[in-house]
């Protein structure tokens, strides 16, 4: 039986460009900025729900967990309940830490949550679109000594109690079979998340969000090991060139394609 845990995080709306702060060391947000669930986490939530639809008897529970303040996280937690997860958990952090705890601490908290919820499958986004580190799945796997199937494009439980995961790779697809307990991180192609139904959202508002206090015994501090020197806006270079006919256009195109391939 699968006891699924989906860690979710709130990020700036994917279509909005974050504003760089005056010190150029980070970002600043205004109260009008729209935040939503990290899109990859949304895919993870969706996948857990789809698994339940397809393999009803295999799923014992689906829980989501967010770390941070209630104010910031209640929307994404409620939406998950409305979409159909069984339980939404918030791990409140110290006021000073806010939502900005280090990735390692986040993973250590998740480790504790997994223990307390007795989960045996973690479905999570392959990266957060705000930090883009893409290492949470790996760190968590290391802490727990659990296997990790990253960048999942298809997830299928097999008869022998394992899970078959088709993974996206640079040059195609690789299929792996993973034993449980384990971690799967989700890629873009896995599914398209559903919308939150209003009627279900209204019911979800009446349901509780569970608070789970987690104390870390050996809280990790960055202690200046990594310092952000400067954040800069990406410069999108657009070059215009005039070509005289279709033949020249085609040769220019193939030139560009091969040179970008070489660069990548």
């Amino acid at each position, binding site marked *: 039986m699968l006891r699924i845990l989906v860690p979710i995080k709130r990020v700036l*709306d*994917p*279509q*909005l*460009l974050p504003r760089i702060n005056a010190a150029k060391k980070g970002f600043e947000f*205004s*109260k*009008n*900025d*729209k935040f*939503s*669930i990290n*899109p990859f986490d949304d895919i993870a939530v969706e996948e857990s729900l789809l698994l339940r639809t397809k393999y009803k008897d295999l799923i014992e529970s689906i829980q989501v967990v967010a770390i941070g303040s209630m104010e910031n996280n209640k929307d994404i937690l409620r*939406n998950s309940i409305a979409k159909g997860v069984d339980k939404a958990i918030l791990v409140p952090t110290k006021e000073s830490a806010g939502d900005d705890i280090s990735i390692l601490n986040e993973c250590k908290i998740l480790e504790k949550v997994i223990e307390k919820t007795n989960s045996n499958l973690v479905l999570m986004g392959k*990266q957060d*679109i705000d930090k*883009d580190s*893409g290492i949470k799945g790996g760190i968590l796997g290391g802490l727990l000594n659990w296997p990790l199937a990253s960048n999942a494009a298809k997830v299928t439980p097999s008869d022998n109690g394992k899970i078959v995961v088709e993974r996206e790779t640079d040059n195609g697809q690789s299929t792996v079979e993973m034993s449980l307990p384990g971690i799967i991180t989700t890629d*873009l192609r896995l*599914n*398209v998340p*559903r*919308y*939150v*139904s*209003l*009627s279900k959202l*209204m019911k979800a508002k009446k349901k509780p969000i569970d608070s789970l206090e987690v104390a870390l015994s050996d809280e990790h501090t960055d202690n200046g090991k990594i310092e952000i020197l400067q954040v800069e806006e990406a410069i999108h270079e657009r070059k215009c060139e005039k070509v005289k006919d279709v033949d020249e256009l085609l040769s220019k195109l193939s030139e560009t394609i091969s040179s970008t391939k070489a660069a990548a």
Partner: protein
Amino acid sequence: MRRASFQRFLSSSGKRFLSQKIIPFTFEKYPNVKRNPNFKSIDSQDIAFFQSILPSPQSILQSDLDEFNIDWMYKFKGQSQLVLKPTSTIQVSQILKYCNEKNLALVPQGGNTGLVGGGVPIFDEIVLSLKNFNKIRSFDEINGILKCDPGIILQDAQEFLASKGYIFPIDLGAKGSCQIGGMVGTNAGGLRLLRYGPLHGSILGLEVVLPDGTIIDGMHSLRKDNTGYDYKQLFIGSEGTLGVVTGISVATPIKSNSVQVAFMGIKDYSSAMKLYVKAKQDLGEILSAFEFMDGQSQEFVKKYRSTTSPSITFPLEESYPYYILIETSGSNKDHDQSKMETFLETAMENELIEDGTIAQDSNEAHELWNWRELIPESCQLNGGSVYKYDISLPIRDMYSLIEETNKRLQEQSLIADSSSSPSSSSSSSSKPVIGAVGFGHMGDGNIHLNIATKQYSKEVESVLEPFVYEFVSSKNGSISAEHGIGFQKKPYLTYGRSKEEIQLNRQIKNLFDPKGIMNPYKLL
């Protein structure tokens, strides 16, 4: 993974489909319309003159002109042999002056997305395409005043303005192709008229070239200016019959930093009306769109999208007889959000809506809009030939038009019975009509009736016309709310205008264009 990769569902709407169909020439379909013999035919001397003022070979086209001769609906096809693409006001002026002297008729053409056959030639009129006349002239960041050439595509203008924190006051489904000049030509209404009003209010000034080549430079930038006749208003909605709009000065609103989109299912039309009243009460000044769609229109979009993007899911779990899309644009996210939530929750409690969803992020918002904006394209893909009526009616009578039309089509046995499943059986049935759908800008009392058919035919047309126009006229509605008259609706002008009004229009036309070279056979 960059943020941009999440813009995955973006589709640019308003694109046309390449049709394999053979489209008959308009003059064959409408034998009663005769070419005006006063107009000269183009000869090599004319070409030589145009070459002298338009030196670039890309500015003069004499072959492969289907794109310019055939309209967006594939309903009208002209026989023009010449397309001119000026890039400046002076060039437009030189062309018009010459044409006026030589009695050469012309059609100004923008993005060719017009829906009444107004932007394509009927016979051999020269097409004056504004496509390459497409620069932004200036933008005043304090007053939000945009000055631009006519040929700039709406979406490009929108992107430019967004980067400055402003928006274009009008938005419509054809944004990927239609031009600002064409929108002025048709006085386009679109999706946000409810909030920002018609172009008649937003346009501060126009530069126009009269048929004799005179350039009227009225690129004013004053919100208040009572110095004589407001002649620019005549050009807004003149459909290229008075002159060519070569410059636009338009007041643009500040971009709202909090936009919300909700999509909901409704059980009957009277709930839709009640919901509209409630939306005005509860959302007040932040309401920026209230769009109505019937069930069949969404069946068409579902079918269309299942071919273009199979993984996309419909916003609601179930199907409903009607749908409403609401957008709010405001300046305070928390306030706006709580207003919207209260509105939707009380609407659910009062059973005005059956279910709904609020976009969680901009991708979802964009997706929800797609379900509304892709209706015209979907009708076309499902049918191929679509009869389109763009009607203003008192809100109470709005949907009865769709019901009456469906009834008539059923009585005449032209449409598959609506009780059988709409999406599956209809296209395979032997009936010529695939479906008659209604959708539109409910907040403006404007509904679009689209009848998707396998082929344009006299049989279907005679059932629809003049029936639709008579119906609308009997309810004191307008037979053209925002698309204009063009060629298609010209015979029905009397349903909307009195003799005296039409006479006054004629006098205005004669004043500006005594030789009648500008977009002949249209409007009047």
